[in-house]
């Protein structure tokens, strides 16, 4: 048993343990323990990784193992991590654990809830550690499908509709994705050698241009849908709005990151030529979704919709940066994924907690919460400031890295697009402050709220962890960005070669 596989095994074991729990108390305890272990593992992984690099291991992927699975198809279970996946795993671990705490009071079918939640997380971790397209795809779908039950059973509002819509749109996307992956697989012998799903192997061969032209868009869109690529983002507002707290957290915080991660780990890394050729189309789309999402958010009345649209905007920024295809921008994209993951998780956690108390998410019905629940409100302000890019919180460094990276692009068109995208930070400020001013400040709109209590200990844990993470990255980003930077060399090299050709 190698170290990385633990990230899949621990959740599975946790699930088995949960099966034998009697009541909600035990269930949540067990899940918290299991995911706590997961978080510890993730942190350990970071240090092990850094130590490994210190020790001078310059391999593209470290801790990698490969086990033959379906021999005749050359499908293997290959795992390994570089700085990027390590960072994403850490993010996932944090969000999952905080998600567990945020859903501490789920009393309707708690066992099923936590099982599905952890099953989902298993898929996420598996996705981030796997280096084999087949395994990756498998974990991807494993991560997507529990959403249906989670939203459908424990959701609110038009939950059946949202759940179905979300699942079908993501599955439709995975249709494109599957074709793309198969296309890659059957062109992976272009350099002689056998067909393979192994990413590192495929990266060595260069896939024929005709094939790339066909399969790059498929793969990119396939992942892009999960990354809320305009115009395929509409599952996200409804999905988030109907989902229970922890699910919104995981979904916006981690699941949407699968899209960005896959988009460059698979689509760009394996098909750089087509990427270089077609980037402009998707750049325009993502540029749209950055501004569009922000403008969309201004007009919303429902807190969750606001954050869903802002997620569209921020995740659009991720894909945008990825398509800029230089090291800094990519670095920024990863940072943005992590920062947005933490930040939006915090947002949804807080919204859930506020909703749990006031039973409304309509900003015009809320007001003056700062007076009633200071801790939650202050956390909300912090989340907001992170979201509008306050220095010292993670959002700022991520966005700045993206902008400065993207602006290094030699082409004027790209630089102008960058400025357009940068304009979104003002719009973000508008809707964030609007919400803060409306729901936290001002007089108390409803005297019933005066009786409400402030955060409980588990909620403090949930938000506290996230805030610490956000501030930590925001104040000392160097280690993270360096860790990512070193791992970006292979893909950047690929893309540069593509330009040369």
């Amino acid at each position, binding site marked *: 048993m190698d170290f990385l596989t633990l990230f899949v095994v621990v959740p599975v074991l946790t699930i088995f343990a949960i099966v034998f729990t009697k009541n909600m108390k035990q269930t949540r305890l067990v899940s918290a323990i299991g995911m706590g272990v997961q978080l510890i593992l993730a942190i350990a992984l970071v240090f092990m990784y850094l130590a490994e690099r210190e020790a001078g291991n310059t391999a593209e992927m470290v801790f990698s193992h490969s086990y033959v699975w379906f021999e005749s198809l050359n499908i293997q279970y290959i795992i390994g991590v570089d700085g990027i996946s390590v960072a994403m795993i850490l993010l996932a671990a944090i969000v999952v654990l905080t998600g567990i705490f945020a859903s501490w009071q789920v009393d309707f079918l708690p066992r099923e809830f936590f099982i599905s939640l952890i099953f989902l997380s298993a898929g996420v971790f598996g996705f981030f550690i796997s280096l084999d397209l087949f395994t990756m795809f498998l974990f991807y779908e494993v991560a997507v499908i529990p959403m249906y039950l989670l939203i459908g059973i424990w959701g609110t509002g038009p939950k059946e509709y949202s759940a179905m819509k979300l699942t079908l749109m993501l599955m439709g996307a995975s249709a494109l994705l599957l074709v793309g992956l198969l296309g890659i697989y059957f062109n992976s012998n272009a350099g002689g050698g056998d067909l393979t799903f192994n990413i590192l192997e495929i990266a060595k061969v260069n896939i024929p241009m005709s094939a790339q032209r066909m399969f790059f868009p498929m793969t990119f869109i396939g992942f892009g849908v999960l990354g809320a690529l305009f115009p395929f983002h509409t599952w996200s507002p409804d999905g988030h709005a109907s989902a229970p707290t922890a699910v919104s957290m995981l979904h916006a915080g981690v699941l949407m990151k699968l899209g960005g991660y896959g988009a460059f780990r698979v689509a760009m890394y394996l098909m750089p030529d087509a990427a270089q050729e077609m980037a402009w189309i998707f750049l325009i789309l993502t540029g749209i979704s950055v501004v569009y999402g922000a403008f969309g958010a201004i007009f919303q009345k429902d807190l969750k919709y606001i954050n869903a649209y802002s997620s569209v905007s921020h995740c659009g920024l991720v894909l945008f940066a990825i398509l800029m295809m230089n090291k800094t921008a990519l670095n920024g994209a990863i940072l943005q994924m992590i920062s947005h993951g933490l930040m939006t998780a915090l947002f949804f956690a807080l919204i859930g907690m506020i909703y749990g108390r006031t039973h409304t998410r309509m900003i015009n019905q809320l007001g003056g919460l700062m007076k009633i629940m200071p801790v939650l409100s202050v956390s909300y302000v912090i989340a907001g400031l992170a979201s509008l890019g306050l220095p010292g919180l993670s959002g700022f460094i991520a966005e700045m*890295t993206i902008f400065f990276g993207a602006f290094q692009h030699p082409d004027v068109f790209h630089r102008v697009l960058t400025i357009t995208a940068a304009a979104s930070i003002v719009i973000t400020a508008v809707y964030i402050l609007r919400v803060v001013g409306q729901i936290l400040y001002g007089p108390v709109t409803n005297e019933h709220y005066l009786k409400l209590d402030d955060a409980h200990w588990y909620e403090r844990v949930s938000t506290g962890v996230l805030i610490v993470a956000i501030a930590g990255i925001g104040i000392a980003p160097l280690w993270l960005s360096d860790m990512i930077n070193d791992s970006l060399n292979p893909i950047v090299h690929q893309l540069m070669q593509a330009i040369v050709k």
Partner: protein
Amino acid sequence: MIDFSYTVLILLIPLFMFLLIGLTSGKMKPALSGYIGTLAMSVVTLLSYYTAYQYFFNRPAGTEIFEKIVPFHTVWVHFTDTLYVDLGVLLDPISVMMLVVITTVSLMVHIYSIGYMHGEKGYSRFYAFLSLFSFSMLGLVVATNIFQMYMFWELVGVSSYLLISFYYEKPTAVSAGKKAFIVTRFADLGFLIGILILSYISGTFNFVELTDPQGALITQGTSLTFMGISALTWALTLIFMGGAGKSAMFPLHIWLPDAMEGPTPVSALIHAATMVVAGVYLVARLFPIYYFVVPDALTIVAYVGGFTSLFAAVIACTQTDIKRVLAFSTMSQIGYMMLALGVSGYGGEHGLGYMASMFHLFTHAMFKALLFLGAGAIIHAVHTNDMNHMGGLRKYLPITHITFLIATLTISGMPPFSAYFSKDEILVAAFEHDKFLFFIEYAVSGITAFYMFRLYFNVFWGKSTHYHHTPHESPLTMTVPLMILAVASMFTGFIPFNDLVTSNGAAFELHTDWSVAIPSVAIGLVGIAVAWIFYKKQSAIPDKLAVTFKYPYKWSFNKFYIDEVYLFVTKKIIFNRISAPVAWFDRHVVDASMNGISWVTNAISDQIKGLQSGQLQKYGFVFVSGVLILTFAFVYFLFN
């Protein structure tokens, strides 16, 4: 070389205080937080005084000019291999001077607030925010590179937001804070884009490299153009836009008057003395680039400054809220500073405007802080901002009265008070460079004297208003700062700025130009006289004038309706014309098309259900026809 590395403490102590007070707020006794906050700030003040002493008067022998010293820096993050962000401390004349200004005023405000904010709820929150602000502002001025400056620039903006909406249950305060943040944020976008372009061209953030007159950027400039204009012009104009936003230059000034919703000490510290001059500081910081590479941008600076000073002064004449009057006077004074930079040259004599601008910044900080704190004392006494409900306060508030009078004389440019010297230098610089601007400023100094004394007389003389409870002088914690600042505004004029704070760090000889000085004093006196006639006693003249010059009065009173314009743009255009359609489009077009797919599928499935009719023979028919069609199809294909 002297070791300045302790200067990093100047940043760290306020930061630590912020975290300490912020995290323990609620647990710790409010009063305590006030005291330790003040204590820490006084330590910081002493440190920066010591730094100033070391830097200015203890420089190693033989060095003619004040070097830029970077005693401490650490890499914060890498963007590219060349483009990386330092966090550090940069000491040069202007930053050291700013250290003194900020810490002094901040300390005064700290002390003052002990009395002023006494018993307010959120007392310790207030001190936490003050510490945060001090930290950010200090970090801004000692920034070693433009990106660090931008970071602290944002932090300053946020702490200003937090402090303006300090009374968060007051909707006006909340919206004022929101307005301030968003307007400055919009300006900062310009700043950011400017930095993007600048760093793209120069490949560095570092001020020392950027502003070195022999450096690559200034000597080579750039061949890049955008829409026919040099990219650097774009960059520096946009950067100035950032500065204009923070310094409330027209047309980005609208947030400043509303910002007066914040507690008065905050107005004194942030919106009079320190933050609002950040724009001036920014331009001064990049001055060599402006001067050598993009003179046209500098002209823009000059004219924006000049216009704003006039514009604000005119508005100030008709406002009745004393804090707003002061706010507009602040705008007008900052206009002076901008203009001075705009008309300045580089090096020695030519750098007069630069020097004057910094000089005025210094003196203005002192007397404007004094004015605001005085106003605070007044408000504290009579619980209103409206000068129409005031009058004859000199009996009740002697100390406040005296100090306020001193400040008023200072701002009116009466010798020998400090502003006389600084403003005089500015006029001289303007006179040498651009007559038109000179006359504007000349007029403005008269108007300034008028509206300030209008304020003074209305508050301390004029009709004897009846107060439902007699106003009483403020406690010592509030009056002492007043006195200290009064002394400061009296005597800081004698500081030899021409030896200390100059464009290239080299001292130069200063000679008073009587042909400018005397008329400026004269017009100041005229302004005072007019104010005396109008407002010393209860008189009908002002109202008569208001009636005769109805429209000018109305326009001025309504601040020339700029706010309304903004309101129109944001509400009508952004919100209703862009955002609402986007939201609608998203729901009814994008989303609908996605749902449409499923709808179509279901519709088809409903249409073809007749196929499964349950009739055996129909099944047979379909079967047979299927067979035959396939057969013919394939046979047909065979023969083509």
